[in-house]
């Protein structure tokens, strides 16, 4: 049962340092949880790091299949993370995403945004032209109830609040919009085809419905309904398409870094934009439930709400909502 004398002596010497490992672990835990900011302790954490590295190297050689080695691996990893990654604070992490990462990602996404907006507009035009020329095709894009309502000279949105309260309507709309946007983005995983399909289909639906209501002289009424929430909602649809297209391109043309690495880089950058857009869709849903269907709110107010919220979106996505202090560098 006894090991070789030399090995045993080395193991014995190593195990004698267990109290120091425990102290090192406790110190690293205090620092990583932000419960200590003592400079002298910080220096000791750096010393712990060297001690643990030394002992771990010996443990890997002397006792590779022991719990002592596993314990040292874990403690060493914790101290490494404490020294190299600093404290993790939720507020600071979210602020960094919205103030630094997001504007950079939006700038990078700009070319995709141009193309996805163009695709959305072309699809809307195609939908409009199709239903304008062949009105019976509206059955492909709209429900029978919607068609019957428009044919009777009324928008389906009229009297909506008599059936569904604003808050209920808002939640239903925002949940649906968020799921559609995120799904359009995630569908980029299918080499971008899913995203293009969802973007194109939504564009065609919008154009087709506008053509259909225009034939019944209700286009103005629909535009009045849409203007307050639609500016942001449609913009977010284009952003989702752009993000999904970027993910798709990374998979189709990964470049020199490899498909998985390219996917990771692009999905992470574009995903942050999408998350900000999801937050914006909550606001759009509330507007669509509380402002858009109310006939008592005058059109200029609806336009002001729509444009104002769109400008807020632009400010959020370009980082202008959180101005930097003088001398502060990006990423600081």
């Amino acid at each position, binding site marked *: 049962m006894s090991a070789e004398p030399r090995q045993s002596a080395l193991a*014995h010497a190593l195990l004698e340092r267990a109290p120091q490992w425990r102290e090192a672990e406790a110190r690293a835990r205090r620092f990583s949880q932000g419960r200590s900011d003592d400079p002298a302790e910080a220096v000791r954490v750096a010393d712990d790091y060297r001690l643990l*590295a030394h002992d771990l190297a010996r443990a890997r050689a002397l006792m590779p299949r022991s*719990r002592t080695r596993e314990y040292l691996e874990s403690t060493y990893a914790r101290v490494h993370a404490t020294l190299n990654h600093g404290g*993790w604070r939720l507020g600071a992490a979210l602020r960094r995403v919205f103030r630094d990462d997001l504007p950079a990602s939006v700038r990078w996404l700009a070319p995709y945004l141009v193309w996805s907006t163009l695709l959305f507009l072309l699809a809307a035009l195609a939908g409009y032209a199709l239903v304008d020329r062949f009105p019976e095709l509206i059955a492909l894009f709209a429900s029978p109830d919607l068609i019957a309502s428009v044919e009777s000279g009324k928008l389906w949105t009229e009297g909506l609040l008599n059936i569904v309260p604003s808050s*209920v309507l808002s939640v239903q709309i925002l949940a649906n919009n968020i*799921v559609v946007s995120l799904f359009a983005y995630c569908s980029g995983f299918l080499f971008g085809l899913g995203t293009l399909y969802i973007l194109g289909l939504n564009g065609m639906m919008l154009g087709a419905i506008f053509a259909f209501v225009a034939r019944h002289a209700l286009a103005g009424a629909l535009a009045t309904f849409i203007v307050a929430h639609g500016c942001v909602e449609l913009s977010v649809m284009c952003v989702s398409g752009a993000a999904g297209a970027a993910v798709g391109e990374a998979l189709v043309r990964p470049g020199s870094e490899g498909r998985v690495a390219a996917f990771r*880089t692009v*999905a*992470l950058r574009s995903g942050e934009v999408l998350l900000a857009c999801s937050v914006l869709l909550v606001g759009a849903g509330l507007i669509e439930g509380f402002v858009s269907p109310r006939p008592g709110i005058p059109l200029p107010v609806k336009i002001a709400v729509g444009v104002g919220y769109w400008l807020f979106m632009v400010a959020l996505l370009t980082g202008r909502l959180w101005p930097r202090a003088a001398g502060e560098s990006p990423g600081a």
Partner: protein
Amino acid sequence: MSEAAPHLSVDSATGIDVTLPIAGAGARSYAFVVDWHIRLVLGLAWYGAAALLYNYVREGAVSLAPPVTNEARWFGAVLVPALVLYFLYHPLLELILRGSTPGKRLAGVRVVGRDGGVPGAGPLLVRNVFRLIDSLPLAYGLGLMLVALTREHVRCGDMAAGTLLVYETASPGLALAPASTAGSLDVATAELVAELLARWPRLTVPARAALARALLRRCGRLADSLAPLDDEALRRALIEASRAGEAAA
């Protein structure tokens, strides 16, 4: 952990790599099932309590039934919070608990970035957005398939966010072998003896007796021919085995 098990290796300034063992489909599924039950119970508990209170205050009735018409207050106070608890459980808890959830803690795993540290808010949120894809076609079919097939056991969300699920290998209370045993026992056996002694009061008498006998036999301190030792004698024998090295050292 076997040597062939996949692990994340991170360079360090000391020249000794940081090695984190990567969790597989089993640990992931275990964590998910626990979390799923927690969020389901939380969502249902909120719905039940809020619905009972709502119906009692409004109609004096003890009922869980929703109102016949769409009522904004019911929606806002009963349904929406329950849905938020269920659907935003993972992203919110991973943000607050630094890449962990109760289920992950129970399974002994946590989310880390490629550098071995706690991922930022962006990666944590992105890996949760991709649950939409991973959960297709049902019951996380695609996610599980990817975890099983990829070398680093990652689902689509982890690929997108650059995250990994790694094991937390040791707890602060782990019983390490006393240095004095190194001369007489091999380290692995000494660790088992130390751990059994630490857990002794929490184990049932038959369970600890069986473990103690097996360990003493492994140390060569329990001959089959000897009369059976009682519970206290077994504990003393284990302590003696762990102290035997002191004389040798």
